[in-house]
């Protein structure tokens, strides 16, 4: 599963790809739509070249590419551009661009950029790409020699500045490439610490480039692409030695796609709206069949977390300005209920600009979404787990981008992100203002953590703790916690879902499920306490907690809440049991810390603790921003 290297969001090329491409060579009129359709498949370098030949043959016959935006791209490189150029042209079609490549002669970077009469400068390019890798800059290794290292970096960055200045008069936009980290080290990990090492030089060069890029020069983050696809694979010495191809041939389609999408972003071709299917996309399960309690988006559940990750990703996109919409085959009210009432949902109704849950076909719905937003269909990305729906949209509305989704929902986010639909060539003040808020908030948390004690830190987390009795909605997660928790688990008693249901209904049992949210997000259900009431005494049958919220004083809050409930029922004495297991050593002193007194310990090490809850004070820890209670949990209220 490597969606970035293999263009995994694109459907595989059909058997008749070559035949369809050949048919275009003889065809007349505007071929843009069919070219764009063919470019929308997962193509290898040869297939991209096949499309590039059609584009090149169309030069001088504008009508053939009438639906494409023409773009003249100059390339200045220290390597060969023979392999990447056709792939760039083919990939450009995918983004609505008819690219003409003007490649300067091999290895003549400074001359091409600085000479007003050079091929690239004379061509009148819309964009010039400096496709230069680390072999093209004087970033020689000078291990341990800080001055020599810094001088080399300054020289290399100076060359970039000089090339940009030379090109400025002839071309409005220059794209520079960051340098992938090198695959070989001299001193191993120590290279990263050593002034003058190539590792440091490459990193410093990239930082310098990023600083310059923000002042009017675009960056193609080849370093990021190489890292994401894997440096071991990216760097191919044989490809360089044989062909002066600067990276592995197999990654040419990925490289060309990343350049083409950046050019597309520059020309305003990036997508603006993420349209989400619901059943088995936003959540696992079918809301209409499974009901609110049957769908799965539980924290701690492998499938649930995959769908939550997609929700979180959608919210992140929304935060940077992508509009969210829903297109689902469902009854409107039932679909909306999940957004309104399901406690694990990250997406809420207010995040969704257009909500289309009905039984009309999705092509009509997507048309309606585009209309409601006053945007073109080519602004939409449609994410649906159902291959039939995807195929329908691809056929009926080819302007809409429809990513293939892998079988495993764990890779949904990776795949949709790899598609780069929302590529940006800039970030507006409006976007930035929103992210500023988050930045400042994050800073506040950090400052409070540094300045105050632990309680100040906890308070800065703005935690919301939520108590509820066992209910149907939480049952699966409760059972899962009971059966999976080993460390923070006082008795390690396991119960099935059926038994959990029975405990919830038992009038002699007080059972709590506890959720915790904080500034970083919703931790979901993180703790469960079960107490059995016998007259004026109650025994804690089960107490467990997810270790990811250790140290948040959740235990104290849970005890205070439990005591409050039990006192209301006339209980005066609380018994806590610790049953040692191989893995629950962290809670051996749990009850002591909470003020219980040791009553007895048996031969097996099982300890019995007691607490007088009639007279003890239970100050609820005042570090929680909100304490929420579902008041149906008391048995009195139930009856």
């Amino acid at each position: 599963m490597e969606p970035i290297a293999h263009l995994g969001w694109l459907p595989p090329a059909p058997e008749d790809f070559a035949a369809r491409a050949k048919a275009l060579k003889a065809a007349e009129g505007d071929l843009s739509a069919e070219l764009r359709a063919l470019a929308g498949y997962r193509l290898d370098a040869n297939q991209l070249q096949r499309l590039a030949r059609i584009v090149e043959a169309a030069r001088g016959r504008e009508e053939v590419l009438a639906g494409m935006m023409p773009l003249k791209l100059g390339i200045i490189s220290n390597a060969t551009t023979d392999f990447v150029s056709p792939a760039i042209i083919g990939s450009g079609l995918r983004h609505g661009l008819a690219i003409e490549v003007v490649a300067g002669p091999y290895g003549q970077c400074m001359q091409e950029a600085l000479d007003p009469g050079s091929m690239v400068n004379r061509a009148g390019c819309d964009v010039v790409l400096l496709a230069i890798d680390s072999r093209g800059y004087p970033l020689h290794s000078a291990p341990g020699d800080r001055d020599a290292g810094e001088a080399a970096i300054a020289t290399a960055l100076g060359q970039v500045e000089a090339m940009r200045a030379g090109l400025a008069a002839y071309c409005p936009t220059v794209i520079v490439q960051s340098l992938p980290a090198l695959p070989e080290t001299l001193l191993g990990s120590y290279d990263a610490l050593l002034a003058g090492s190539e590792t440091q030089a490459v990193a410093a060069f990239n930082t310098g480039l990023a600083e310059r890029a923000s002042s009017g020069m675009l960056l193609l983050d080849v370093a990021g692409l190489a890292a994401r696809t894997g440096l071991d694979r990216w760097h191919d010495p044989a490809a360089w030695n044989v062909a002066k191809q600067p990276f592995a041939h197999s990654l040419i389609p990925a490289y060309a796609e990343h350049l083409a999408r950046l050019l597309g972003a520059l020309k305003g071709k990036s997508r603006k709206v993420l349209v989400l299917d619901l059943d088995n996309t936003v959540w696992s399960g079918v809301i209409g069949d499974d009901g609110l309690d049957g769908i799965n988006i539980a924290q701690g559940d492998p499938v649930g977390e995959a769908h939550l990750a997609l929700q979180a990703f959608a919210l992140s996109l929304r935060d940077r300005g992508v509009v969210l919409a829903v297109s689902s085959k469902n009854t409107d009210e039932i679909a909306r209920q999940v957004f309104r009432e399901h406690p694990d949902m990250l997406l809420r109704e207010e995040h969704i600009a257009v909500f289309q849950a009905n039984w009309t076909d999705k092509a009509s719905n997507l048309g309606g979404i585009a209309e409601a937003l006053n945007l073109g269909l080519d602004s939409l990305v449609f994410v649906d787990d159902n291959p039939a729906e995807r195929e329908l949209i691809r056929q009926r509305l080819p302007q809409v981008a429809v990513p293939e989704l892998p079988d495993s929902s764990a890779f949904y986010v990776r795949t949709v992100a790899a598609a780069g639909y929302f590529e940006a060539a800039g970030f507006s003040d409006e976007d930035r203002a929103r992210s500023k808020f988050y930045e400042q908030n994050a800073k506040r948390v950090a400052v409070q953590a540094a300045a105050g004690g632990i309680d100040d830190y906890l308070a800065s987390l703005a935690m919301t703790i939520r108590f509820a009795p066992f209910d149907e909605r939480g049952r699966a997660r409760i059972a899962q916690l009971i059966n999976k928790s080993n460390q923070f688990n006082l008795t390690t008693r396991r119960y099935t879902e059926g038994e959990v249901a029975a405990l919830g209904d038992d009038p002699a049992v007080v059972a709590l499920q506890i959720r915790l949210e904080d500034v970083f997000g919703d931790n979901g259900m993180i703790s469960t306490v079960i107490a059995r009431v016998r007259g004026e005494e109650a025994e804690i049958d089960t107490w467990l907690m997810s270790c990811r919220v250790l140290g948040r004083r959740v235990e104290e809050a849970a005890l205070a809440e439990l005591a409050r409930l039990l006192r209301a029922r006339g209980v005066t004495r609380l018994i806590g049991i610790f049953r040692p297991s191989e893995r629950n050593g962290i809670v051996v002193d749990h009850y002591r810390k909470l003020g219980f007194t040791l009553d007895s310990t048996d031969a097996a090490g099982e300890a019995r603790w007691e607490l007088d809850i009639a007279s003890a004070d239970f100050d609820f820890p005042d570090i929680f921003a909100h304490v929420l209670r579902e008041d149906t949990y008391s048995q009195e209220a139930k009856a």
Partner: protein
Amino acid sequence: MTDDDIYSKLATIFDDVFEYEGPLGPETVSADVDGWDSVGHIRLVLAAEEVFGVRFEPKEVVGLNNLGELVAAIRQKAG
């Protein structure tokens, strides 16, 4: 793998790489095929590596004089 099998697959490769659908034989040389220059040669070898599941050393890539030699190399490597 017989030479016929190899030539049959090479026909597809020549179409994919060069859009060449003419005759292919041991005596076919680069001058016979439009686009079979030094860059085209590397594309051809890469495609052959992928289709036949073989790997050519750099010195083998540059040392092939006609299609017959490529077929012989594939036959030997692919077994």
